[in-house]
């Protein structure tokens, strides 16, 4: 009897000890992971606050609506760069979107074949090519034969950059649609292309748009592929066969200049670019939430 009590007491201390040990480990891991999360946020927050701090003073109404001033004059704005970025990204989307969608649909619907895995591999390779190399390629393929820098060339470069991200996000999203939804469409006597474009696409529209918007947000900050394609332009230009201004290249040009006022404007333009990308991300998320309801 006594021995039994002793055993129970021993067991209880052991349980208590081990559960204390468990609690300590639990607490330690929790603290370590929280620290890691905070560390991960530090670059993001510091970039954001630093750009806001340096760039905010440059922002006023005039900055958004006026053209760059000639060298030596104080002031001027980024109006042409804003419009230029919109034109370049719009033109790039026009090229990259159908192209990426096409590849993505092919990969999700006919993705089991050897040819499809070769295509998937190629798309992944394209995604890992540095954007400056894409810029060089477009320079050789478009700028040299046309004998001029142009919005066409810049848009094509951005379009090529969009292809892999749009293709892979489209593939992943369409793959999420269960096979029995496709079969239900086929069983109604509908051809496969109608099932994909009219039924599957409609069901995943929100997610597809999110994928596109994220890749639009990504390419709208690209500088390298525009440097020797769209070049830049200090004047108004809507023409696609002429060099055109863009936010990232304008930031680059101002940042490497020797003038304090241009540095100030470069920070201001950087802040505008960050907010533009942030805005795209937020509206996409919002639209996504609305769409899934």
């Amino acid at each position, binding site marked *: 009897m006594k021995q039994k009590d002793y055993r129970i007491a021993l067991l209880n201390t052991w349980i208590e000890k081990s559960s204390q040990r468990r609690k300590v480990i639990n607490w330690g891991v929790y603290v370590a992971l929280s620290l890691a999360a905070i560390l991960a946020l530090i670059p993001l927050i510091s970039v954001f606050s630093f750009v806001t701090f340096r760039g905010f003073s440059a922002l006023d109404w005039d900055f958004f609506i006026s053209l760059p001033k000639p060298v030596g004059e104080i002031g001027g704005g980024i109006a042409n760069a804003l419009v230029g970025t919109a034109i370049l990204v719009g033109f790039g989307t026009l090229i990259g979107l159908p192209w990426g969608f096409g590849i993505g649909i092919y990969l999700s619907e006919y993705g089991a074949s050897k040819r499809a895995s070769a295509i998937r591999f190629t798309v992944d390779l394209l995604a890992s090519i540095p954007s400056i190399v894409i810029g060089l390629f477009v320079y050789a393929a478009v700028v040299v034969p046309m004998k001029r820098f142009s919005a066409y060339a810049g848009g094509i470069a951005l379009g090529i950059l969009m292809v892999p991200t749009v293709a892979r996000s489209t593939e992943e999203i369409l793959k999420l649609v269960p096979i*029995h939804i496709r079969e239900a469409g*086929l069983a*109604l*006597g509908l051809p496969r292309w109608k099932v994909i474009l009219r039924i599957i696409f409609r069901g995943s529209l929100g997610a597809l748009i999110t994928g596109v918007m994220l890749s639009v947000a990504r390419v709208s900050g690209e500088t390298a592929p525009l440097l020797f394609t769209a070049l830049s332009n200090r004047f108004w230009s809507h023409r696609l066969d002429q060099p055109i201004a863009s936010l990232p290249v304008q930031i680059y040009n101002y940042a490497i200049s020797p003038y304090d006022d241009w540095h100030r404007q470069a920070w201001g333009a950087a802040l505008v670019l960050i907010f533009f990308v942030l805005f795209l991300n937020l509206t996409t998320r919002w639209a996504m939430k609305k769409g899934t309801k």
Partner: protein
Amino acid sequence: MEISSFFSTRDLNAWFGKTLAVRAVNMSFAENTVSAIIGPSGCGKSTFLRCLNRLHEEVPGARVNGTVLLENKNIYSKDVDPVELRRQIGMVFQKPNPFPAFSVFDNVAVGLKLAGIRKSTILKDAVERSLRMAALWDEVKDKLNDAGTSLSGGQQQRLCIARALAVEPRVLLMDEPTSALDPISTAKIEELVSELKKAVTIIIVTHNMQQAARISDQTAFFLLGDLIEYGATSQLFTAPKDNRTERYITGRFG
């Protein structure tokens, strides 16, 4: 068996890669009857059903040979377009699968719409008729614009039945249509099947032997890809001819 030759199979084989899943099946289905197919999991009954509307061949690596005759026309002959064929042989699946982001109305109308029918009066009539046939009209007539996926599971399955009926098929294939539903929804669908056979010929795969006994005119028993026995439901369940059928329906294996 003296069954008219409305819909029948001759030496139908189905493969998945190198696996023979359905072996030399000969069956015929009379018009406006309900035929049930029972058998343990993996016996090839669903595969057999999917050969009847040429859906089996859509699976990569899957293959069919043999003959399926719909009113004396082989649906596997080269001049038959599987897309056209599937309009005549509708299908309802195991899990209710209304099209996501489609309203109740659009789920039913989509088959006709995408076949090129635009006139809204025709579509409206077809949707109401199909939903009435599926015994769903009274429950959804005030929420035709709600998402199809917002309905309950049993309602969703009846919506899928209405969707299949809207293109006016001759035959309706049902692949375990109640296995994901509660007993009340199941009872509704069973009742519906008995009603629907006035309009379409129904072939239903089921795991539930009581269900087969309740709703079907003929029953077939499949085992390991073979058709073991096929006959009038009352006879198959009370006096099976084959020893294996008897052991299965009395629950001694499978």
